[in-house]
């Protein structure tokens, strides 16, 4: 067993599960989507991105790309949330909430690809 592999897998799966946790629920109901969960998802995603730096294989490049996509989508979701609450002053209307959640849904897809890559890579290694 390799500790590096454990940490790597942990963060990728954790980013995916946190993202999923934020995403589930009615799309336009604010109280079903927790702001702490979004925060945690962003942080874990950023860490996962940094962990993928420096891998020069083709799979490594796709890994990094998916993570960058997920970061972009989640940060966009957080920005929309912040804008709605503090700048526009409308608060979390169902419309705003659904766009936040759909952005996180996009990030979820990217994270899913990342997890699939991880699993595929693992299965390729014959034991």
């Amino acid at each position, binding site marked *: 067993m390799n500790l590096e592999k454990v940490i790597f897998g942990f963060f990728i799966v954790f980013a995916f599960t946190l993202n999923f946790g934020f995403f589930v629920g009615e799309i336009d109901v604010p109280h079903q989507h927790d702001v702490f969960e979004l*925060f945690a998802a962003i942080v874990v995603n950023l*860490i996962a991105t940094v962990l993928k*730096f420096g891998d020069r294989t083709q799979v490594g490049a796709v890994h990094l790309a998916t993570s960058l996509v997920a970061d972009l989508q989640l940060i966009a979701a957080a920005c929309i949330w912040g804008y709605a609450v503090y700048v526009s002053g409308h608060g979390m209307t169902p419309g705003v909430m659904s766009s936040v959640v759909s952005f996180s849904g996009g990030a979820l897809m990217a994270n899913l690809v990342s997890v699939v890559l991880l699993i595929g890579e693992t299965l390729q290694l014959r034991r």
Partner: protein
Amino acid sequence: MPNIFFLVLRRMRAPLITLILIYAISVLGLVLIPGEDGNGQPYSMDFFHAFYFISYTATTIGFGEVPFPFTYLQRMWVVVCIYLSVIGWAYGLGTLFSILQDKRFQQAVLLARFSGAVRRLGEPFYIVCGYGQTGRRLCQVLEERGIRFVVLEPREERVTDVMLADYRFDVPAYSGDAGNPQMLQTAGILNPHCKGVLALTGDEEVNLAIAIAAYVLRPQLLSVCRAKSQAVAENMASFGANHVVNMFEAVGRRFRMALHAPQASRLWSVLSAFAGDPLPPLSQPPRGHWVVVGYGRMGHAIRAALLAEGSSVTVIDLSIPADLQAGQYVVGLGVDAHTLTLAGLEQAVGVVACTDHDANNLSAVATARQIRPSLFVVARQNASSNRVLFEAFKPDATAVRSEVVAQECLRAMVSPTLARFLELIQTRSEVWAGAVLREMEALCGDRVPESWVLTLNGQNQAACYALLLNPQPRLVLRHLLLDPQEHTLQLPCLPLLLIQGGEEVLLPPPETPLMFDARILFIGRSEAHRAQEAVINQYRLIDYVRTGVVQPQSWLFRWWAARRSQTMANGDD
């Protein structure tokens, strides 16, 4: 080739993760710790404000406590955050700077830049391995001819010299072991634009390694290698298409030619010299008794040349030469009158000072001249920085190592036609060579003329047109000697050799008809070269030199000209 950006990111992984964690913990703490608003009501900070606060606190900007003054608990947490973030940033920046200052990292950056510069060259180029005296001289000449090159040199300070040499174009240079095939690949040996490799390092083994690598990687590539000893030269020559320059042999060969045929030898020197240099004078070494000071490799070559031309030789050397009989040599430094007289200087016609020490050479020829002022003096100049001394002393002939090697290299690289011409002149008489020299002097005065080769092939559209599409009137050599601005004037150039259809014509007569794929070697002034390039590339000009009539260009005037010639033809009937 590692990508520098990802190399940095890879080594920055730990500090970046630390920073992300510190930010996350600080923000989360601020959000979770209860605070009070202006009215003393419980208030808990949101993520946006927490992130805003941490961002400006961590970067030591510090706008104060927003949106409300902090409670004691919050302030305690902020103290922790401040120290955490300072540690995070110090760690991150420290790692970044240590990476950037790492010698190996800087080397990697230089290498990446070098290989990028080579890849972007996009023009034919040569790889020059070794930037010593010879390399420098050759690079200058290549620059004058507008040929690009890449420099590989093991010593770092010489690479800096390349940067400071003020060439007209950017010269990619890198300090690396040229004998390493991987290094040669980085320098672009596999690049389709690469035309040749010049192995000019001082180390013969490295030169041999370059020759082998060039032969294995690109067998068709021109590779010119400098050799010092016969064994290595033969080893290099065994690699197919290589051209080996053995400096001492080259000097010996030229010296023998000068003894044998002074006019042909001068013609050879003029055509080998670099354009714009002063014209080399006629040197006529006399036959008789010679004294050779220094019996190294060059001494061997010169002694052999002298003996072959029927002179007698006494050698002066510090050690007893193994291959000579007693009486053929004198042991000594050769700088004092005693040893020189012992070697028979009183009866000698010439002296050759060819040790590898410039001061000794100068001293030897000075003493010899004092004893016998009428001597023919040949001196070897080792360091190009001593040129002033040798010029002031005015020996009858000077052998400069870097010049000789550079000339030999250039001939091999740039013009096989010129090399062929130089072979052919050795079959001609002295009178013939003298006549060519007189014509050359009439044309270009006291400077070495430029030499160039004109090839009439598919790359020159006007040549194709005049030879294939519209072959009337027939294109003859005379047409190429006319000024395309004014056809009654001659261009300042002289055709030396015409190669076409398997025939080689020395000094071709002007009325020789030209065929497709003809190669003509010219010497003359550079404006003639430019004019000829224009003629073989523009329909209008080639028709003008062929007919002497300015052809109408536009459709209207063509129509008018056709009409007029028609009416004139009708009028004749």
